């Protein structure tokens, strides 16, 4: 699946975009975030405070129990501040 990061999440993780293949037991957004935290201190720090991490799957806002599948475009970003 394709992961996208924006704003300070992008800066903390150090990349804007990556392709990942999590293990089969990662089936939803919550599981994906847990798995990402284990990928290194930059991920752990960026994803430390769950409340300020918003997630979109295939460009739609989703909750933590939303499924994630191979081929999905999954974006993680802080609360938006446009307008």
């Amino acid at each position, binding site marked *: 699946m394709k992961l996208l990061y924006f704003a300070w999440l992008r800066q903390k993780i150090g990349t804007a975009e990556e392709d990942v293949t999590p293990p089969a037991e990662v089936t939803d957004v919550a599981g994906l975030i847990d798995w990402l935290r284990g990928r290194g201190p930059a991920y752990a720090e960026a994803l430390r405070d769950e409340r300020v991490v918003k997630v979109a799957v295939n460009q739609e806002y989703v909750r933590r129990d939303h499924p994630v599948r191979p081929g999905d475009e999954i974006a993680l970003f802080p*609360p938006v*501040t446009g307008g």
Partner: protein
Amino acid sequence: MIRVQREDFDIGAEISALTAGNHAIGGVACFAGLVRDMAGGDDISAMTLEHYPGMTEKELARIEAEAQARWPLEASLIVHRYGRLGPGERIVLVVTASAHRQAAFDAAMFLMDFLKTKAPFWKLEDTGGDARWVDARESDESALERWRKPAR
């Protein structure tokens, strides 16, 4: 109509193009957001707007469709810029046109409230040397509450 662009826009020209030839329009409300040079006491020398191409357009279109469903609008427009902007520069434009003024005003406020909390844009403020991501405001989130009740 929605547009996401780097370039500036001309408010008068946008309104004229949107309302031209539609004589059922009695009122046009608009809102333009500008870059302020002060944020929490620090001078802002510039601001960079990052966004999520693809999702931005989808969210803006969804928000506009919701406003069209709630109010009898003759026309509507959302233009949002991205990239680097200096103090006083235009960031966003919302225009709503209706037979009557209150529908136009309400729809414009609705669009701004949703855009502020749903459209995937992020502001990086440059206060001279130091760059800082703008925090989401609690008051923007609570501004949504008023739209929970059915529209007039």
